[in-house]
């Protein structure tokens, strides 16, 4: 091989490996969302959590080191109606005075092929911690990565909605939680 071409090729290879050696870890909270959907009397309702804090470090080339943590401020919930917001802060629902936040801490990330992944972790709500699996997709440009995923929990597993609200015929047990996280890249340390 012509030595000149060899230099070009090897520098290209080096450049590409540099380009891939980025870790996405600066969560852009203002561009990210955590929302949920549930059924009430058979009608799908959408809600959001306006305030949450998130930390992530994700390098598709080093999944074993991937980490994520999300803490949701439960008082920032919007269930779709102001009556509902007051209600879910109460004792029978989140008991937000005693348990102001809900948190997810990842325990591992698995590749599912393509841009699909699966995060495993522990979800803590109202003092109860359970394992959850959240499939997500990851799309990135050089400087910016976007995680989109969702998973479904059963609210009664966490005692969300006690007493009369334990009746899942009115407010369904399944709550779908959806996340959209925008994370900027920071160059990986060598």
């Amino acid at each position, binding site marked *: 091989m012509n030595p000149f071409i060899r230099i070009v090729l090897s520098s290209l290879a080096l450049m590409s490996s540099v380009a891939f050696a980025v870790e996405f870890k600066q969560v852009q909270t203002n561009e990210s969302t955590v929302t949920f959907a549930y059924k009430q*009397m058979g*009608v*799908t309702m959408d809600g959001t959590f306006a305030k949450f804090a998130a930390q992530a470090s994700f390098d598709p080339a080093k999944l074993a080191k991937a980490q994520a943590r999300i803490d949701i401020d439960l008082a920032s919930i919007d269930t779709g109606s102001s009556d*509902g917001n007051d209600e879910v802060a109460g004792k029978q629902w989140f008991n937000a005075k005693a348990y102001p936040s809900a948190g997810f801490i990842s325990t591992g990330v698995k590749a599912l092929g393509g841009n699909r992944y699966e995060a495993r972790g522990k979800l803590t709500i109202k003092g109860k911690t359970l394992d959850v699996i959240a499939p997500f997709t990851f799309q990135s440009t050089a400087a910016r990565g976007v995680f989109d995923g969702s998973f479904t929990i059963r609210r009664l597993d966490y005692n969300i909605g006690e007493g009369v609200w334990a009746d899942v*015929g*009115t407010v369904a047990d399944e709550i779908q939680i959806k996340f959209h996280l925008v994370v900027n890249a920071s160059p990986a340390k060598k």
Partner: protein
Amino acid sequence: MNTPIQRYNNTAMALHWLVALLVFAAFPLGVYMHDLPLSPTKLQYYSYHKWIGITILVLAVTRVVWRITHTPPPLPEAIPRWEVVVSHITHLALYGLLLAIPLSGWLMSSAKGFQTVWFGLLPLPDLVGKDKALGDLLTTVHQGLNLMLFLLVGMHIAAVIKHKLIDRDQILERMLPKGMSK
């Protein structure tokens, strides 16, 4: 009376009395549920109220179609002209309210972000997006129209009583099945 009573046909009677029954269920339910504290019962009552309301809307449309395609039995000739005019206006307004009230409720639900799913099975499209100010306005409209309905139904029933007890004519019998009146 020697002349046989000319009645509404069975379809018209069935529609009239079914709508009457549903209005007498939906109206008090609406007044009652409004002030309940939030509970599963309240959510259920709201759904039932909305299901009944949409049913009334469908039946009211059917009634308008029936009315356009049929001639109602004639009124007794003894009735003064002004009473005929007032009764036409009242009936026209009642038809209008039977359409407008469920429609305002449907729009209000959409504006407040609660889609209407008829009997929990058939989702109705949200004709307006979620909008708090519009939702509050439509609540006022829905309540105002219901107040008008309350007054007009009161007039409707008062007129029946007047015709029965004072005029002693057979206005009511036109809307009653044969077996139920002499």
